């Protein structure tokens, strides 16, 4: 028994050295801890984002970084589990990294908002800032808002408003179909709320939640949609739950619009393919044809720089905006101290890649930004994921359109 224990202790110490005892040394870069899933079933998103950040950092660092230093990403695998994300957070604070960034999953997001807030309260000498680039739950900048979180992506409610404003006037009957978990439920809730406010002429002929990731055969949903006489299916489904739905609809010859929120997510266009032509729309933060439509050759060139080396599309403009704003805030603050940077970020105004104005609202730390409602068609300059089909903007929900009230009552730090 003892020999094994000894062996185990050795292994333990060796591993701990590897992971915890990295040399502190002189910091010549500004590190950002990046927490996302890189293994397990949700790794595709994390992997793609990591590539995108690599591309974005080239630009941000070429533009001078911040305080004359370059940014460096330190990735941590959270396996899309809050507990793992919190362990990663500990690792990040151990290494005195002042920023933690996370772009997938509201469950992890909620854990980080809470975890960062508690950490900062308990360790005032080692504070961190949580840069939220993909936890979409509306609550995170409303009921659960926190001073230490800055969200650089539109929340569900903003997307809902964009979604409804983009619905054509001739659509009078819609069917809501969403996944039965937090995200799907808040989409359902916000869509109904804003439908009533903005388009009282639209009748909701069906409103349904379906089990998340469990449905194998969507044809009965299609039959139900058909029976309801809906003109459009408004859905927050993504990945498999969306692809199978659209496939089943096309197979059955159901001729309705699919007004989705997330069809443009990576892998979506590939999986849907021609099935989505003329019926699929999505609410995007950016897509490769936006610069063409807005006639911004710089932005187009930047987007093309990504296309040259990848099969996927560059649509993560808010990531770029986030890092640019962060760099500016650090320069303004003159240090990477979390509190100083946070104060500098508040109410910061900026322009994004295509020159649209964005603003980090002080009351709830939600970035106010535009959204592009786009439809899936052949008739575009740049196709999506080499499918031959691409996104074409139908409607731009401007920053002003999406400046929505918040119920956030933020506790601000004393100093």
């Amino acid at each position, binding site marked *: *028994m*003892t*020999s*094994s224990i000894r062996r*185990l*202790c050795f*292994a*333990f110490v060796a*591993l*701990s050295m*590897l*992971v*915890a*005892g990295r040399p*502190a040394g002189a910091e010549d870069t500004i590190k950002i801890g990046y927490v996302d899933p*890189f*293994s*397990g079933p949700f*790794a595709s998103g994390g*992997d793609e984002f*990591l*590539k995108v950040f*690599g*591309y974005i950092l*080239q630009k941000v660092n070429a533009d001078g970084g911040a305080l004359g230093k370059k940014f460096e990403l330190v990735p*941590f*695998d959270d*396996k*899309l589990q*809050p*507990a*793992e994300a*919190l*362990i990663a957070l*500990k*690792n990040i*604070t*151990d290494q005195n990294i002042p920023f933690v960034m996370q772009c997938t*999953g*509201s*469950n992890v*997001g*909620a*854990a980080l908002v*809470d*975890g960062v807030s*508690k950490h900062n309260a*308990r*360790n005032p*000498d*080692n504070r961190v800032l949580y840069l939220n680039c993909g936890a979409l*739950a509306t*609550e995170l900048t409303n009921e659960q808002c926190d001073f230490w979180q800055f969200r650089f992506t539109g929340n569900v409610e903003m997307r809902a408003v964009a979604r409804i404003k983009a619905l054509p006037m001739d659509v009078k009957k819609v069917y809501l179909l969403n996944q039965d*978990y*937090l*995200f799907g*439920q808040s989409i359902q809730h916000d869509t109904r709320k804003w439908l009533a406010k903005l388009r009282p002429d639209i009748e909701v002929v069906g409103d349904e939640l379906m*089990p998340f990731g*469990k449905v194998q055969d969507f044809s009965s949903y299609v039959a139900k949609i058909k029976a309801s006489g809906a003109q459009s299916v408004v859905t927050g489904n993504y990945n498999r739950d969306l692809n199978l739905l659209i496939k089943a609809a096309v197979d059955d010859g159901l001729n309705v619009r699919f007004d989705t929120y997330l069809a443009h997510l990576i892998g979506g266009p590939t999986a849907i393919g021609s099935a989505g032509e003329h019926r699929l729309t999505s609410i995007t933060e950016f897509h490769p044809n936006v610069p063409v439509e807005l006639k911004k050759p710089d932005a187009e060139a930047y987007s093309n720089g990504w296309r040259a*080396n990848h099969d996927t599309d560059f649509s993560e403009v808010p990531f770029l905006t986030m890092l640019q704003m962060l760099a500016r805030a650090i320069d303004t603050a003159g240090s990477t101290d979390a509190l100083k940077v946070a104060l500098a970020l508040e109410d910061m105004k900026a322009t994004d890649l295509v020159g649209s104005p964005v603003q980090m609202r002080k009351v709830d730390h939600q970035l106010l930004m535009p959204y592009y409602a786009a439809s899936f068609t052949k008739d575009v300059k740049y196709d999506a994921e080499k499918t031959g089909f691409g996104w074409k903007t139908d409607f731009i929900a401007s920053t002003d359109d999406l400046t929505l009230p918040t119920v956030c009552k933020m506790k601000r730090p004393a100093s």
Partner: protein
Amino acid sequence: MKSRWLIPALIAVAIALPWCFYDWGHHRHAGFLLSMLSQMGMMVILALSYNMLLGQAGLFSLCHATFFGIGGYATVHLLNAVGAGDLPVPMELMPLLAGLSGLALAILFGAMATKQRATAFAMITLGISELMATAALMFHHFFGGEGGVTTNRMIENSLFGLTYASGLQVYYLILAWTVLATGLMYYLTLTPLGRMANATRDNFERAQFIGYDPRMVRFLQFALSGFFAGIGGGLYAITYEIVTFDALAAPLSANALLMAYIGGTTVFGGPILGAILITLLQSGVSLLSNSWLVYVGVMFIAMVIFAPTGLAGIIKAHGPIRHSGRLGSLVVPYLRLVIPSLGLLLGFVGIVELMSFLTIGAAQGRKLVLFGGPVDVHAALPWVISCGSLILGALWLRIEAAGFHRIWENLTAEVRR
């Protein structure tokens, strides 16, 4: 017996470990290490309580995380109630209440599942696990949906006046409960119920004909293991101050199984080894490689094929040889195994990393760093080296393993005489 001081020594090491990695530059503890140690503590409880079913009662359960999770949710709600001043319970007793909630649920589900044994039992637990995981996403009042339920562990109600602001205090609380729960679980193995659980595992029919109802034995064992899993869940809630549906979902049940099996189900302490190893892989190795799941999978399969008694079983097999003082004569044979094993390992890790880098990591703008040096994945050399080392290592190991097997057999035969 040497094992008399082994347990106190282990506890002492566990107490001292955070101080070994104290960060003198910043005058604070290594938070990551504390988190990992805390995680190990609760995983030790989870794995041991799982082994109450798999190893001790021969029950293959697929819903163990359900009780872990329910303990976590119960604790979060209780902590919130204490924080709001509705409930005067000191922090130190929280895990007990969590355990009771796990017990309650295990009684409910156990009444259903333990009516059957073997595969039917496993399938019922699979169903339970699916039902609970989906329910957790669907019903917000108790489970809080995907975002889970958060709490604050600084409830200012402690038997010892502790605030639990720092990870160190929490770690010591977890350590105390882990030691306590481990002790209790060990005690259980020495009681009539624990012994009859072993007996029904070996031969449930015989158990009937000496007066025991195997179903009742299974039920009690199941309920008690749910109690301990609940304690683990309570510690989870206290550490992370948030519980989401991940705490009761199937992957955690699978983890419990992996930990118990890799550690060794036939020895009481086996799952402890497994829990420590898997947590290291999950939190440690996953920082170095995203392919950690492959390593776990391959290790698991290798264990199933070559060492079904797990790590602890291998160690136990050395017992008689050690007693006879012949352990020294195994050193050289072991050393001869090390070199081909390293070759095999190197080749395997090389190929897995090269492959996964080529398809997944390539375009991330990173350089593949293997064994301390950058590697060009498009050159032939690393592939040739990896494949060669894998094949040569495997062949050589076969030869050496046969030789080792002979020596081992001779030695055990001698010792037996």
